[in-house]
């Protein structure tokens, strides 16, 4: 078993899953930012569990004696960015009630904007704080110029012709794209594929999230 999580940075970013974490760490690496710790909080659909886990993560012991200066929550928009933002804010309100020592923050009012409270807080909604979708949407948008992208589109479109209620379309597209691009057809997760630069990290679709990460690193 890997070492238990301890807090080792004064800026924290909470994401929904291991793929999100891998993608963010790759983006941070490309930006030469190393002062942000990215932590997975599973299960946003179980509100109570999500808050308990988030709270437990924030209470983790720190490697040295410092205080958390800023933290952000990054959630998928899924069907609507605004409702996901409100969901994240209501989670933060619950977290406020738990009165975690040395974590004194206000509730963000706008997407991707840090509060001015002692501990800065912000919410970023994937893919771009506007459209519906998720991490996968952002990654797929970065490779729309890739010839294989059209293959994937046709493939999924054909599949929908056979099963018109095909769900998790974006995730299926991502896995299909990875299957085509990965060396020797190796099975890879989105996080692993992103680390291997199967997606286009330099695409301007990542500009907003990169700006947000830079902002967090300066808090």
């Amino acid at each position, binding site marked *: *078993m*890997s070492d*238990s*999580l*301890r807090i080792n940075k004064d800026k924290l970013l909470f994401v929904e899953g291991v793929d999100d974490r891998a993608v963010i760490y790759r983006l941070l690496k490309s930006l030469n930012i190393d002062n942000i710790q990215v932590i*997975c*909080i*599973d299960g946003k659909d179980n509100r*109570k*569990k999500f808050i*308990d*886990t988030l*709270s*437990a*993560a924030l*209470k*983790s*012991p720190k490697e040295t*004696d410092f205080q958390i200066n800023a933290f952000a929550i990054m959630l998928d928009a899924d069907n609507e960015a605004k409702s996901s933002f409100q969901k994240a804010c209501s989670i933060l309100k619950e977290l406020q009630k738990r009165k975690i*020592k040395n974590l004194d923050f206000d509730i963000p009012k706008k997407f991707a904007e840090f509060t001015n409270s002692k501990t800065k807080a912000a919410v970023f909604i994937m893919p771009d704080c506007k459209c519906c979708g998720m991490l996968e949407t952002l990654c797929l948008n970065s490779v729309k110029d890739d010839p294989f992208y059209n293959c994937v589109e046709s493939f999924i479109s054909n599949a929908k012709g056979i099963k018109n209620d095909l769900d998790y379309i974006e995730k299926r597209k991502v896995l299909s794209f990875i299957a085509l691009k990965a060396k020797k057809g190796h099975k890879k997760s989105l996080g692993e594929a992103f680390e291997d630069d199967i997606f286009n990290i330099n695409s301007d679709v990542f500009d907003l999230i990169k700006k947000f990460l830079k902002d967090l690193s300066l808090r």
Partner: protein
Amino acid sequence: MIKDIKIKNYKGFKDFQLDNLKQINLITGKNNTGKSTLLEAISLLYNPKSVYFINFSGFNSNNCYSFFHNLNTQDPIIISTSHNNLKLNIHLCENIKEEQRFIKDEKPENITKKETGFRFLYSSKNKAKTDLFINTNGNYYQTNKSDKIHISDTKLINLRNTYLDNYVKQFDEIQTNKQDDILIKLLKETIAPRLNNITLSQDNTLKVDLGLDKYLPFSALGDGIKTLFKILTTIYTTKDGIILIDEIENGFHYSVMNSVWKVILKAAKEFGVQIFATTHSKECIENYLKAFNELELEDDFDNYYRLEAKQDEIISVEYTTDELKNALQNNFEIR
């Protein structure tokens, strides 16, 4: 049951407070973060004579200064709880003879010169004030004996101490109350399958029947069963009181930890005992949670605290049962 405790100027605690205390309070933290010190302070509040044994080096004129934070003997040690507004101030008295004006019930000639010790000054809800003088020579003087302060029965279990006298007395009480059969059954089911019986012989020593031709001395048993025996006899004889257990995992193999916790939690609930237990062991905490879930105990039955040293202060980080559960599931460090 106490719901909070404040400690000032005691050893590592400059000004420390723990709130939301529950019936079961599990405490962890690195070395030198005050886990044992917290138990000592609670013990001193309710059982001032424990000053004689809470330090390994005892209580003597050479070490009595070390009870004070940064050796600050100018200020008293203050230990208090909102339960009955009980407040204890402990002052260092380098010459108790000079303080004899406070000791109305004792004849001054009983006090030899230059006795060093602590003055325990209690106040509580009913305005009663009680003075105790405990000196390093083992003498004990009390004033205002008629006043009653609200004291809970509190016992500190030192699992590293091999001395069994207290537990022999407790077992005697359990036998008198005809609870020994249940206790032996629990020990047998949990940790000692060969144990048939425990008896108290005429010379006041404990003997055990392990199905052999003769009874064996209790000391021949392993550490795990001794530890559980100490804990259970204390719970059985401390109804509605407080029990303080340092490093509760001592002597237990991880495979029995779950059943040990179940037995302890059930007994604590049955006897209304409030437990403060410290641990360094993740397995102990995991098994504690497992037992807690299996017994379907209520969420407000327990709390978990990690103590952390920050420069000159010690702070506590409090976890609810659900936070603790999720931290373990996600492999977040909790100790």
